[in-house]
């Protein structure tokens, strides 16, 4: 029996209002597997759904299909710099952000200060990577909901970003660009112009996306009021990033716990306001990402002006990295949320322990809380709105 289900309050299932009906109908709950291979689980994720008809009673995520032993590898590195390519491969969609998180943590441990040119280049790369990640998040989210076209528009815009990355460091997806103490390559002469051109190109594209997808009535019906995450629950689950800001909590590490040169840049923090449904629903999380892209463009425009053109990007790179025994926990704001690196050093050239707190890992643990009582189609919508990357979840 299909009854209209919302996640507003307790789902009233017809078989519950008539006592004894459930037993006499012998209605059982079915276990359906949204298996590791599935078009919209964003990677190899297994969701065990316990459903009563179309209504989900519980969701049990099973992860670990993409576990590549990142932390074990780090303990066997001969050099702290060697961790950077491995860090790239965790959130492979926004690789610059992972590198940024690691070098911020390592530089804090080693007490290295880098020049403004390096800092601003890193900020520009991180913001480009934020836009790239959000484009994939929004495009694939549209695809999960059934709108196939915005995905290709987002990919077309992402190509421009990947072009900039390619001219700077030679790679489109996984860069090994940010090194401890500097960068691997000096940004080319055309770098600033390319970034300015991209900012100019991209601003109308956000409007195009809004017209096509964001304010489409069917899209709003599929996402507004679905998968509501109340702010207290979000904070208790340590959810971060657009998922947290979609619930109305104004918390962005670039503003609240600044690192690098973010304290010198002006930008707004978009927050979900429940315009279309309730605060903390899928539409809010989606809209936070759209507006964050606009804010990233704003950050990049300022950073490009403030970035010095002269300077050696490799001057602060230490020849030998041998930190004193100690530990540090440093966190940065990646497109998915708060990425934390807990680096413990025992005084040797290899890290003793590198623990990564991946935002997707934490955000995914809140999925069952958001999807109980929703329908199967809603689980797809909620999972897409959390925006996970399995590389990060499993490391």
């Amino acid at each position: 029996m299909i009854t209209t289900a919302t996640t507003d309050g307790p789902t009233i299932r017809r078989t519950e209002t008539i006592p004894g009906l459930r037993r006499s109908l012998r209605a059982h709950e079915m276990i359906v597997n949204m298996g590791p291979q599935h078009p919209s689980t964003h990677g190899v994720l297994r969701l065990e759904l316990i459903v009563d008809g179309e209504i989900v009673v519980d969701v049990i995520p099973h992860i670990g299909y993409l576990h590549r032993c990142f932390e074990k590898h780090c303990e066997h590195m001969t050099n702290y710099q060697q961790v950077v390519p491995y860090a790239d491969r965790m959130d492979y969609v926004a690789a610059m952000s992972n590198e940024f998180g690691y070098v911020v943590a390592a530089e804090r441990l080693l007490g290295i200060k880098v020049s403004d040119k390096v800092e601003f280049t890193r900020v520009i790369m991180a913001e480009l990577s934020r836009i790239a990640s959000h484009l994939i998040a929004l495009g694939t989210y549209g695809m999960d909901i059934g709108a196939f076209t915005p995905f290709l528009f987002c990919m077309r815009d992402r190509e421009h970003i990947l072009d900039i990355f390619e001219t700077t460091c030679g790679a489109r997806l996984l860069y090994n660009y940010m090194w401890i103490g500097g960068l691997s390559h000096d940004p080319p002469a055309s770098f600033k112009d390319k970034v300015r051109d991209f900012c100019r190109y991209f601003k109308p594209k956000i409007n195009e996306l809004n017209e096509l997808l964001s304010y489409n009535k069917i899209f709003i019906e599929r996402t507004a009021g679905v998968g509501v995450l109340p702010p207290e629950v979000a904070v208790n689950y340590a959810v971060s990033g657009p998922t947290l800001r979609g619930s109305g909590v104004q918390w962005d590490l670039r503003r609240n716990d600044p690192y690098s040169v973010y304290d010198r840049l002006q930008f707004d923090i978009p927050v979900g306001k429940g315009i279309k449904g309730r605060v903390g629903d899928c539409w809010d999380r989606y809209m936070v990402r759209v507006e964050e892209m606009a804010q990233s463009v704003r950050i990049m425009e300022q950073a490009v002006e403030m970035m010095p053109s002269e300077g050696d990007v490799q001057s602060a790179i230490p020849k030998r990295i041998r930190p004193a025994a100690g530990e540090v926990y440093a966190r940065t704001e990646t497109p998915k949320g708060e990425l934390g690196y807990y680096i413990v050093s025992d005084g040797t050239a290899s890290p003793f322990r590198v623990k990564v707190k991946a935002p997707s890992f934490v955000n995914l643990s809140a999925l069952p809380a958001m999807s109980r009582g929703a329908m199967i189609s809603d689980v797809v919508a909620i999972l897409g709105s959390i925006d996970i990357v399995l590389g990060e979840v499993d490391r």
Partner: protein
Amino acid sequence: MTTVEIFGLLKEKFGDAILESKTEGVPSPYVAVAPHSVLNVALFLRDNEQTRFDVLMCLSGMDYMAGKFGVVYHLDSMPLRHKLTLKVHLTAENLHVQSVESVWKTADWHEREAFDMYGIVFDGHPDLRRILMPDDWEGYPLRKDFKVPQYYNGMKVPY
């Protein structure tokens, strides 16, 4: 509040359960807690007006070699904007520590990962099973003395 102040506050409330605090001469100060009182300390830190640590940023298992293990908690307070590091020291004979899942729901998966990787058992956790490794894996991979098994279910592991 600084770590020194929080240490003073905790020592006052919990006495012997708070073991030590290293705040001088280290880039990251911490407070060490006894394993059997972690839950009470966590509840206090979350609910007390002066501390209000409502976010558990990270929970890491540690293997310090020579039979010494540990759990490190990184706490953050969004309203009061301060952070704290808690450490629990364990030995190989007694790898049990209280679970803080009832305090911060995020600890659910973090503790499962610490169990999976180090074999640290969190008492009171509702569903402590492996999370990253397959359910029938033997051994705790991130331990320093972990030997990669030759065969897993008939498949050769190192290739």
